[in-house]
């Protein structure tokens, strides 16, 4: 509710408004985990850690940007990982048939846009529930991807393009893919937090119909967001393919859940209307750091999943639980409290 739900928050000083938010909590937790890992996890302070970490989470960071905006409108896109797989296969097949890599990549991006447009049309203009639509296209896109290549893989890619996906900036340990990511992150932040359309995105999530009647182009906004999601997923697919030098239909299977988990951990409400980009990015990094540190500790992947799962569940239940407990306490100097708008109850019910 930080942007448009209530104005009582402005009754607080700026430092409180900035520091005492869900996003700040996730960022603080991320810093704590990083410092703790640096101090105690063997080899976590090695030179390769940052590079591997960023390379691993790059596709999730990328896709989490449009996913954040979509979930804030109250919708969801489960087909993103299948678009990664489909664009990977198309890139491989086109390149295998003699197209230059930039041209094949451009066509793969257009395919991503087309996939997103299909989702967007069904959700925004036909009014179908995005959960159902994108479960369908999750299976559809993955089916086409695996059908196109079967169990084969295309593995011949021009080395200099592969180097772009695996290389680092100069002599640093920061992968080159962070450059397009930062550009996109700034773009999506400007769109969501500093534009009229961004306020419209929150309004849609808070109340679809009210947003419509106040002049927000609800259908067009949702349509564009799904197209953006398709394009960014296709871009992630191109990166994924080149990084591993392997175009396969089953690339990135299951990644949609990693993206959505990180978005929710980052403080976006699954009911829409609430969340901020920096919180989400911290959520992605937090999960990445925990996985990386636990692997270095030789903890099996099952235990890692249990810990991340508990963290997610805890993050979802902690907020309303503690709010409820706080509500039981006698209130100090009541502030200018407004009656909660109907949607405000939503986060408490998450």
């Amino acid at each position, binding site marked *: 509710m930080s942007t448009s739900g209530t104005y*009582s*928050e402005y*009754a*607080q000083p700026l430092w*409180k408004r900035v520091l*005492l*938010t869900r996003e*700040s*909590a*996730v960022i603080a*937790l991320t810093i*704590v*985990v990083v410092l*703790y*890992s640096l101090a*105690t*996890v*063997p*080899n*976590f302070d*090695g030179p*390769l*850690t940052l590079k*591997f970490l960023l390379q691993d989470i790059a596709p999730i960071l990328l896709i989490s940007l449009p996913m954040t905006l979509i979930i804030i409108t109250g919708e969801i896109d489960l087909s993103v990982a299948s678009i990664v797989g489909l664009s990977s296969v198309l890139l491989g097949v086109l390149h295998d048939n003699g197209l230059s890599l930039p041209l094949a990549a451009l066509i793969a991006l257009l395919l991503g846009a087309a996939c997103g447009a299909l989702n967007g049309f069904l959700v925004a203009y036909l009014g179908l529930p995005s959960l159902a639509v994108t479960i369908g296209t999750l299976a559809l896109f993955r089916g086409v991807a695996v059908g196109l290549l079967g169990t084969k*893989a295309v593995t011949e890619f021009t080395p200099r393009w592969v180097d772009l996906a695996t290389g680092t900036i100069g002599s640093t340990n920061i992968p080159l893919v962070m450059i397009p990511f930062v550009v996109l992150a700034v773009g999506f932040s400007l769109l969501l937090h500093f534009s009229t359309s961004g306020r419209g995105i929150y309004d849609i999530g808070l109340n679809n119909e009210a947003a419509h009647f106040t002049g927000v182009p609800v259908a067009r906004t949702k349509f564009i967001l799904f197209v953006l999601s398709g394009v960014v997923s296709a871009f992630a697919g191109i990166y*994924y393919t080149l990084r*591993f*030098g*392997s175009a*396969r239909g*089953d*690339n*990135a*299977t299951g990644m949609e859940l990693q993206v959505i988990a990180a978005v929710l951990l980052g403080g976006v409400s699954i009911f829409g209307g609430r969340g901020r980009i920096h919180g989400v990015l911290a959520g992605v990094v937090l999960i990445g750091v*925990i996985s990386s*540190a*636990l*692997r*270095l*500790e*030789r*903890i*099996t*992947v099952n*235990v890692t999943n249990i*810990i991340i799962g*508990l*963290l997610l569940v*805890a993050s979802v239940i*902690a*907020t309303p639980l*503690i*709010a409820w407990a*706080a*509500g039981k306490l006698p209130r100090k100097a009541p*502030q200018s*409290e407004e009656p909660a708008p109907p949607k*405000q109850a939503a*986060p*408490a019910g998450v």
Partner: protein
Amino acid sequence: MRIHSSRATALAALALSVSLLSACGGEDTGGDSGDGDSGGGDIALTMLPKNLGNPYFDTSTNGAEEAADEVGATIEEVGPETGDDPAGQVPFINTVAQQGADGLIVSANDPEAICDAIAEARDAGVKVVTFDSDTNPDCRDLFINQATPEGIAAKQLELISEQIGGSGEIAILSAAANATNQNAWIEMMEAELKSNSAYKDIELVDIVYGDDQDQKSFDQTEALLQNHPDLKGIISPTTVGIAAAARYLSESEFKGKVKLTGLGTPNEMRPYVEDGTVEAFALWNPADLGYLAVQATTALVNGDITGEEGETFDAGRLGEFEVSADGVVLLGEPFVFDEKNIEEFDF
């Protein structure tokens, strides 16, 4: 309710930090002791199968641990839960590079996708040996090959010839018609039948395809027996096919009369060996494969070999092995499972 939810989030964060720290703290001791092990001058190896919880790889890891005990190495098994994602092994390979382990033994989920990660591990000084499933040869130091196509083809013909007394009609139940490895084995068997005088009385009358589907393989077995009333034996060089064919035979009048052999796994084939449907079938022994992989990796780490063709190394109870072209070490002939030894295996 802004104040309360702000305070609530801060408290929530605190609670999360505490729970997370305690979780990490709990694991900390394990990590320290692991560190101590590898710091003691031992050789530190990591075993990375295609996925965890797979009886086949559990067996190979058991063999690997046996060898590690003998050579004084420590070995850790890590890996993804499922083999779904071709790149799912990459983070584990990266971790090995970060830890600077001495050796990595990996069964590749994808011949190409993990190559970059392996290259970085090798840059960090890790010796990388593939087993069971290879990467491109230039990615790794050695590949421990469980069996050659020639060996697999020859062993299956030998088994069926023995079982049908050296003469009569046989048929092959394969997987998919375009399965590369199946077709390579079938071509070699056809060539061997023509050229080897020991098989002059054996006639290959049919090749059918069950597409590695249980029901289809079952139906194809039934059709084979109807179309070829004089059929003496069936070779099924696929684990799905041989199990389905065995199930059909065990419930039919042909049980024990029409012989069946091929490539199968002990757990799937055990009931049919026990009830007499199948006398013997072949595969390799995953425990020996894991054992040999650790011996070879240790030889690399100790500098006894570098992976060049023609080098030899001692592999404990398995004897001496030679590195052949492309850095391949061959485990040997396929292993034959029969009623005498099948109880010893669980995969």
